[in-house]
């Protein structure tokens, strides 16, 4: 220990604080960091955070896409007329086309003529068939003003009484099915997220219990010198807060890196067929600000969760040994 020089009384205060700071910095932590299985835990937490962030990113992506689908109105609808006994197909087509065309919001109607229908069926039925001999349904394509879509229900109500074999398809069913699937995916995503978070909590519980057991001799001595449970818990909590934050930050950073690479990849390959497919499904891969915000949130949640979990575990452990003490050696 450095002794304070008595002949420099005026410097004493400054010297003392300097010495104190020097000594304080040197003071060993009560629970040495290397006693806590730090690295493996940091890695596990990083992986868990990474997975949570990816799940969260995917969930936001799917949810955003689904809401776009939900609000998107198809540019076209189709009226399909099935041939039935005694129906004059051409007249029916003209009538349906006329009814549909009168609706506000419809920009035009187009009857798919015989040749076009035959061409549509060619891949299945081969060439040279006489379409009149087959009961082939015929189509009318109704183009729609997207900004001001027509009332499909009213249109259906206007057509069906006059032409019972006509069916109006506004493609809603297909979109509804996609949206339902997207919602299911989102639900599954949240379930996965919940599982990952639970697994993280359990991992931290085990790690904390392990660390406590491994530092039993320190806890015992702290008890004997009159340390309160609060004091002991604080010593451990600090370690786990640092560990949790380190892991969570690393995992979050990795997830953000993945997001950035994805959006870079999707913007670079805008024109390629794969990218077009992906874009068709998910818009572009840009994880919006929600996604990045979510990563930040996830990092905080996991860091806080780690600290809270280890604190609760430490407190439970400490009250446990106090109860066990009469029997224990």
């Amino acid at each position, binding site marked *: 220990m450095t002794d304070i020089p008595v002949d420099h009384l005026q410097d004493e205060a400054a010297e003392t604080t300097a010495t*104190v700071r020097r000594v304080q910095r040197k*003071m060993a932590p009560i629970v040495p960091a290397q*006693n806590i299985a730090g690295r493996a835990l940091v890695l596990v937490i990083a992986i868990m955070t990474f997975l949570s962030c990816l799940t969260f990113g995917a969930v936001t992506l799917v949810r955003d896409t689904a809401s776009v689908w939900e609000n998107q109105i198809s540019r076209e609808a189709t009226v399909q007329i099935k041939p039935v006994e005694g129906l004059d197909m051409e007249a029916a087509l003209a009538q349906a086309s006329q009814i549909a065309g009168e609706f506000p919001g419809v920009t035009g109607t187009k009857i798919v003529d015989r040749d076009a229908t035959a061409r549509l069926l060619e891949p299945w039925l081969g060439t040279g068939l006489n379409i009149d001999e087959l009961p082939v349904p015929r189509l009318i394509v109704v183009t729609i003003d997207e900004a001001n879509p027509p009332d499909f229900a009213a249109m259906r109500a206007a057509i069906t009484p006059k032409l019972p074999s006509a069916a109006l398809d506004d493609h809603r069913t297909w979109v509804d099915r996609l949206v339902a699937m997207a919602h299911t995916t989102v639900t599954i995503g949240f379930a996965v997220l919940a599982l990952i978070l639970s697994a993280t909590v359990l991992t931290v519980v085990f790690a904390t219990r392990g660390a406590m057991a491994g530092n039993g*001799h320190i806890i015992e001595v702290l*008890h*004997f*010198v009159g*340390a309160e*449970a609060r004091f002991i818990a604080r010593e451990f909590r600090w370690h786990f807060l640092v560990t949790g934050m380190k892991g969570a930050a690393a995992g979050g950073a990795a997830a953000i890196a993945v997001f950035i690479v994805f959006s870079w990849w999707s913007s670079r390959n805008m024109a390629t067929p794969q990218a077009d497919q992906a874009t068709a499904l998910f818009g572009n891969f840009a994880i919006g600000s929600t996604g990045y915000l979510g990563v930040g949130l996830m990092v905080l949640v996991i860091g806080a969760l780690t600290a809270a979990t280890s604190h609760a575990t430490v407190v439970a452990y400490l*009250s446990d040994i106090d109860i066990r003490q009469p029997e224990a050696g």
Partner: protein
Amino acid sequence: MIRFENVGLRYGMGPEILRDISLHIPERSFQFLSGPSGAGKTTLLRLLFMSLKPTRGLITIFGKDRSRISRGELPLLRRRIGVVFQDFRLLDHMTTYENVALPLRVRGREEANYRTDVTELLKWVGLGDRMHVLPPVLSGGEKQRAAIARALIEQPEILLADEPTGNVDPPLARRLLRLFIELNRLGTAVVIATHDLGLMEQVDARRMILAGGRLDVYD
């Protein structure tokens, strides 16, 4: 200060190690606790230190019924008691200085306020030049003195020492004994568990002898 009435203790389902122990440790008293190895000296000290609960009988510590002391009260009561363990219980990752300062640290004291006290005490027990080494490189006697210093640093109301001279040579043992007597004069009650007859002969003090689970007190 501490009173036992018909105290009995067994570990788990084992035999009763202590039977019908009745004793009183007054304030500022000085006593030896002796008896053959395995007689239960350490066990009795653990009862005094509240790290064990008696299986029967009544213990009153600082005027409180032991069975009514809650977990939350325990730390504050333990701060009034200094203990020297037979196996020292020093923390290997802390220097001698830090080990001795530990009781002050857990009380939330500022290092600046106790540094000179710790240094002086360490010099007094002859560890002035071993202050910044870790316990694993200390000799048995040096560890013992560090453990004693840790128990004394807060001037406890009662000091419980388990074989405090077991690892030191007779001159140093005498010096440590003088330290305990000095501490006693300053107002600390002292209980020294030992089977060192030579040590006991140096002081005319109360002797409590444990044998066969029973305690005989010779004033």
